[in-house]
C-alpha cells in the first residue's frame, strides 16, 4: 500500500548497543513526526521535520537520541548506548503541512 512504513517492526537490543529505526513516509508528505509510546500510554512527541529541516526536537529525551531526514523523505531515528528505559514503541507519522497525520505501525524496541 501507500501508507507509512517502518522498519524493523521489532528490535531487541542489548543495553549499550546503538539502534537505528527507519521511517518511510507517504510520498509527497512534507511533515514527518516521531513519537515514543510506552506500554499503556499515549504517544509522546519526540521530534518533527518539515522536508529535511528538523524544526522541533524538544521531545528527544536525551542526547543519545538523534533523528535525521537528509533528503526530505526517509527518516532515521538513532538511539545510542540504549538503556532499558528506552524500551517502547516508536511511531512515525507523516502529513501534508497542517494536515491529518498518518501513522506507521511502529517499531517495538526492547532493550535487555
Amino acid at each position, binding site marked *: 500500500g501507500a501508507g*507509512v512504513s517502518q522498519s524493523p517492526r521489532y528490535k531487541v537490543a542489548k543495553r549499550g548497543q546503538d539502534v537505528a529505526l527507519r521511517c518511510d513516509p507517504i510520498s509527497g508528505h512534507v511533515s514527518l*513526526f516521531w*513519537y515514543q509510546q510506552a506500554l*499503556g*500510554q*499515549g*504517544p*509522546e*512527541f519526540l521530534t*518533527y521535520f518539515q522536508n529535511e529541516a528538523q524544526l*522541533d526536537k524538544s*521531545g528527544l529525551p536525551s542526547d543519545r537520541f538523534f533523528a535525521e531526514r537528509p533528503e526530505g523523505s526517509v527518516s532515521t531515528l538513532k538511539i545510542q548506548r540504549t538503556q532499558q528505559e528506552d524500551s517502547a514503541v516508536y*511511531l512515525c*507519522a507523516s502529513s501534508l503541512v497542517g494536515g*491529518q*497525520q*498518518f*501513522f*506507521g*505501525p*511502529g517499531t*517495538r524496541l526492547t532493550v535487555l
Partner: protein
Amino acid sequence: SQQGEEDPQALSIQEGENATMNCSYKTSINNLQWYRQNSGRGLVHLILIRSNEREKHSGRLRVTLDTSKKSSSLLITASRAADTASYFCAASVLTFGSGTQLTVLP
C-alpha cells in the same frame, strides 16, 4: 507531560451498547482530534473538531467539544466487537492523552 487526559482509563461494554469516552485538556486549542489504536498497530485518525464547533458526527461517532470546560467526549453508538481498541484524544497535533481502552464484548 501529556496535554489530553482520557476518562475512563478502561471501559468494557456489550456489543450494541453505546460507549462514551471523555477527554480533558489544559491549554487553548485550535482543534481537538480523536484517534484509535488497535493492539500492535499505529494510530488511525477518527475525527477532528475545531474550536468553534460544538458537535460533530461521522458515521457511528459523535464528538462534542466544550471549550469553556476544556473537555471533549467521544460517543460510539451501537458498538461492535471490532471497535475494541484504545482511543486517544490529541488537543494539539503533537500531544496525546493516555487513552481509554475500550473492550466490546460479543
